[in-house]
């Protein structure tokens, strides 16, 4: 990202409670990490203080900081906790309740009391203007200026923090929305237009995204204000991580906060892409396991899969974001029996407080972390350098009492079962992201990160016949490390419904030209050099009659490009759904454009020791109920590039643990210091050795 070869780079991950701060010197491959408390409103100052002291440990002044990228959950949390700005919505007359009708669906088929997410804009602040376009953009009813003036006055009384505008067919013609925006300008509040936020068909999803964008504008503005001083200190080169795998300028983030709703998880996917590029991996699946949930994503040929179907806090968030499957399975997930007596894990989580039983903070329900500890996969001296001891006896007691005794099995079987069920849930998510998308996991590499990712990835890989697992060096702060060298990007999409075979080259040129000039104008206004920007076009295609489209690359803005896109669509349709027709008409639904300024930096990791250290100890790990193996315990930092080990063994690091089973092998890869674990392929539900073999060391 920096053009200054000696400059320092910083990545900041602002969570609800803590801020992770990473400072790097790419030229010397040095990186420092800090964690500070998140005090809203003061985060800019606190981040600068943290960066200043980190820089001091590198014997550099903060003035050497060339750029900083900030990942933030501020938008996500606002949606999840429904802390939204006081928002108004302007719609076409007759359609203000579309937001409340919410596609007519119930929140749950089988829980009649479960409610939909609260309507983003309450009815008294949803106002209508007389106007109407048809689906070709023809004006059926002109915009009523007098009525519009009255609407503006009525809204002035309501004193909203932001106003959203969503008129029917604004994705075909934005003129009426622009006119409404001009009239609203005197209110002096941020405006969010559906023709800019999400110019695609389906009025409910577009209105929701536009309203959520408006509702999070004040929140993002306050957050950016807190970063003001930081931005000033780095000469304006301060960026916000977006949902789709690129970073956004601050003015872009201010305009489109909803495009940052997946800011945090997208960082992990970007980091995985860099690792995949370095090691020339074609097909990569990622597994990021945290305390309450796990995220799974996939990358093919270096492309991040994009989805429009994300739901956050019960709302559809149809702006493009990295396609990530999230499940309620993490270290804190609670094991329990359902009414029929089957073992379930999660989605309820003990969270950080009270946390797992073994934390000794009042938790009484056995969790996944308790199972790991009981089976000796985790060390009783805990992680974080032994500063946080864990109570293994308490974990075993809880598993015995709450799971093993009711099931009539040993605590070892119960603990192992908790991990098996957890793994099964993760396997389903990984399968969704691979097999169901026509990708063969047997050709993939699973990249594991997050505190507990490496504890589960090897079992997940074994279950899906994924041949190898890659554990990056900075496992716990992998996302932050990845976004150090993320591209700056802008993206847009536009519904343009056409029979693909009938698209005329000049029409294609006209609409793509319009989309391009819109994005380039924004980029130029943000101070980027258009000559350095890279264009990336794709199309959403479907068979005529289908609703769901598949996104494929558009390699050229001409008929040959369209023909290539059609071929890619047929191949993808066959791969995903098992059938494809060469004769049915293919329809072009949406055009997508992303322009990006490629990062100039490829951030490596600190060099390791020249000679590897030996194991610092050993633990007797229960790999199954009756399968115990003595595992040497290595320290990650002691392992030299090129080191090779053979399981069973354990590699521990500051914030994570990797446990290799019998016959698995591991190598420390040169360049990234990632652990490359090759999985011994295996049969049988218990993943155990043949009977009769002694497992006692």
């Amino acid at each position: 990202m920096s053009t200054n070869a000696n400059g320092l780079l910083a990545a900041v991950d602002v969570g609800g409670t803590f801020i992770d701060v990473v400072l790097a010197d790419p030229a010397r491959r040095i990186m420092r990490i800090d964690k500070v408390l998140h005090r809203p409103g003061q985060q800019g100052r606190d981040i600068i203080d943290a960066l200043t002291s980190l820089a001091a440990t590198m014997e550099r002044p903060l003035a050497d900081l060339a750029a900083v990228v900030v990942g933030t959950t501020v938008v996500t949390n606002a949606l999840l906790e429904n802390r939204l700005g006081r928002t108004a919505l302007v719609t076409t007359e007759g359609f203000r309740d579309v937001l409340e009708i919410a596609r007519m669906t119930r929140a749950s088929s089988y829980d009649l009391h479960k409610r939909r997410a609260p309507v983003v804009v309450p009815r008294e602040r949803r106002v209508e203007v007389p106007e109407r376009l048809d689906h070709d953009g023809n004006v059926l009813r002109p915009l009523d200026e007098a009525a519009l003036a009255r609407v503006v006055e009525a809204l002035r009384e309501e004193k909203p923090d932001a106003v959203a505008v969503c008129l029917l067919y604004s994705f075909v013609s934005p003129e009426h929305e622009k006119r409404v925006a001009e009239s609203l300008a005197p209110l002096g509040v941020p405006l969010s237009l559906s023709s800019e936020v999400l110019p695609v068909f389906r009025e409910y999803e577009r209105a929701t995204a536009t309203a959520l964008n408006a509702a999070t504008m004040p929140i993002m503005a306050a957050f950016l204000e807190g970063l003001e001083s930081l931005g000033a200190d780095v000469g304006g080169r301060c960026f916000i991580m977006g949902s789709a795998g690129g970073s956004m300028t601050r003015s872009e983030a201010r305009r489109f906060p909803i495009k940052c709703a997946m800011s945090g998880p997208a960082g992990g996917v970007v980091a995985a892409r860099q690792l995949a590029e370095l090691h020339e991996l074609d097909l990569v699946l990622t597994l990021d396991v945290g305390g309450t949930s796990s995220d799974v994503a996939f990358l093919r040929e270096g492309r991040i899969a994009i989805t429009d179907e994300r739901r956050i806090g019960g709302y559809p968030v149809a702006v493009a974001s990295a396609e990530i499957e999230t499940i309620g399975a993490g270290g804190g997930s609670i094991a329990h029996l359902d009414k029929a007596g089957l073992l379930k894990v999660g989605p309820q989580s003990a969270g950080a407080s009270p946390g797992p039983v073994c934390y000794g903070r009042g938790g009484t329900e056995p969790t996944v972390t308790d199972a790991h500890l009981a089976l000796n996969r985790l060390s009783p001296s805990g992680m974080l350098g032994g500063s946080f001891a864990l109570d293994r006896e308490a974990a075993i007691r809880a598993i015995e009492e709450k799971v093993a005794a009711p099931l009539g099995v040993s605590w070892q079987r119960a603990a192992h079962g908790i991990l098996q069920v957890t793994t099964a849930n993760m396997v389903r998510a990984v399968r969704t992201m691979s097999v169901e998308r026509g990708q063969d996991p047997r050709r993939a590499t699973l990249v594991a990160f997050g505190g507990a990712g490496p504890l589960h990835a090897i079992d997940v890989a074994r279950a899906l016949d994924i041949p190898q697992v890659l554990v990056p060096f900075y496992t716990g702060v992998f996302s932050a490390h990845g976004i150090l060298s993320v591209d700056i990007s802008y993206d847009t999409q536009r519904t343009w419904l056409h029979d693909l075979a009938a698209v005329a080259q000049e029409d294609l040129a006209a609409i793509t030209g319009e989309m391009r000039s819109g994005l380039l104008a924004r980029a130029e206004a943000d101070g980027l050099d258009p000559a350095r920007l890279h264009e990336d076009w794709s199309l959403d295609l479907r068979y005529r009659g289908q609703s769901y489209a598949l996104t494929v690359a558009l390699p050229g803005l001409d008929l040959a490009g369209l023909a290539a896109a059609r071929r890619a669509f047929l191949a993808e349709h066959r791969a995903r759904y098992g059938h494809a027709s060469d004769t049915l008409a293919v329809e072009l639904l949406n055009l997508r454009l992303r322009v990006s300024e490629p990062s100039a930096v490829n951030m490596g990791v600190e060099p390791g020791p020249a000679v590897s250290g030996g194991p610092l100890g050993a633990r007797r790990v229960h790999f199954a109920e009756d399968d115990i193996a003595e595992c040497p315990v290595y320290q990650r930092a002691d392992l030299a590039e090129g080191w090779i080990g053979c399981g069973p063994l354990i590699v521990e690091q500051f914030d994570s643990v990797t446990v290799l089973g019998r016959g698995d092998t591991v190598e420390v890869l040169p360049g990234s210091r990632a652990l490359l674990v090759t999985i011994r392929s295996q049969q049988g539900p218990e993943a155990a050795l043949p009977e009769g073999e002694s497992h006692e060391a």
Partner: protein
Amino acid sequence: MYREDPPPLSPLPPPDHARLDNIAVELVRNSFSGICDEMAESLVRSSHSPNIKERRDCSCCLYTARGEIVVQAEHIPVHLGVMATALPHVLLDFPPEEMAPGDVFIVNDPYHGANHLPDFIVAGPLFAEGRLIGFAASMAHHTDVGGMAPRSMPAGATEIFHEGLRLPPVRLASAGRVDPGLRRVIAANSRLPEERLADLDAQIATIEVAQRRIDELTQRYSADDLLSAAARILDMAEAATRRVVAELPSGTLRGQALADYGPTTIPIRVALTPREDVLEVDFAGTGDQVVGPFNSCLSATLACVFMAVRITLGEGIPANAGMYRALHITAPDGSILNPRYPAAISAAAQVSYHTFEALLDALAPLYPERVLAGSGGGGVFSLGGTDPRTGRLFAYGEALGGGSGASCVADGESGMIPPIANLHDTPVELLEMSLPMRIERYEIVEDSGGAGRFRGGFGLRRAFRLLTSARCSFQVSMPTRGPAGLDGGEPGAPTRIRIVSPDGTTRRVDRFMDLFAPEGSLIEIETAGGGGYGRPEERDPEALASDLRAGYDRRRVEGEAA
């Protein structure tokens, strides 16, 4: 030509229950459940009918080798019963021991275990190690299967023959080869033949998806493991259900609802009586079948019972055929809930709204925290004709939600599909891009929610302008009385439909009706609001003020002004 009683289960030897512990059983169940989800995902994404792709009117499930449901992808609750009754009918005609991998069967006839005719059930056997270990099936609502009106839900039908193509259980594919003759018959009987074939192919593909996933599972589990796990999943759900039934207070819970389709209302009565560990569910006293299509079929009636049990006493118990074994359900022969052949039946879902309402009415005293007051819906509106832009036939329709019933803790939500059919609406922009019509309003009907301590949700107003002449069928729901309140709550407003012709004449649609509407007609539908919960005098004044601010309640404003 019909078959009255669900045939007995096919006699397969009981599997060995002791093979796997409960943890391993859960792992297999998890895999089965993943297979169902994947089947459903594949179907929704690659189908062509708006009903399937936008409104998700489809379901998928896996069965044991004995034809009992093990797991299902949970889309539409009312499909549960159909999936349970249809497969045994297929197995009666096609003995499992004669089936081969790649065989696929189809049935849509309510007199052979299916639902109404547009719902195609496509099923096939699953094999592991060369042995039959179960079945997979998908069910999807096809837009048009012939009959006397576009979209095959004619309001004026009086016999099943008016409603479209009947398919008793027939073979659709042998060892992976689809019968071209049958495909042609199905296509020739639809106003939208291309769409039928594309959707049929998508359904067949779901069976292939299931078999592929079973093949993968057999790398980890033997056929005996899978058979044993499936049997255990059912036995555990059965045992859990029997336990909760045995703990119910003795005595009979009674509930009723008035099924409303315009000309008259039909009482639906239900009595729930625990007899040791079996729950008897008896619909004795329910009104007779009607001449039109406003008749449930037995499978839809069973579905309502399964759903009501599942969300009350069965809460937390995995929903599968094991649960059903603990229920003994009877519906009088010739009643609206179990009509005699050849009654028309296409509006079965609208009857089910009321069947479910009666069941919740019965269960409310025991489970006040789980039930809702009556929920509103507008019924089904279908239309069809020739699209002037393309010269091709079109057929379109939708089921419109209404106000949801209030609960003991909250107001009902507005513009929501009734509980037994969790469908989506069709986006206005999608509709106008593909059909010769324009939506002029899509909004909430103010004042339509029933008053109460918690008020019912509001119904929907959807106004269609026809850009070409069309034949319309209205299977209107709740046109004379709104859904009932609970515990002193008032009923919601009824459904109102009116048609304004270009010449200004207005017609009310207050009952099931087929009609021809000329180009330029405006069809304005206002669907029923939900029933209230608790007495209106007990409503929190702050909630009243909030409704006023939002403009939900104009009655009060006008009342005060007067």
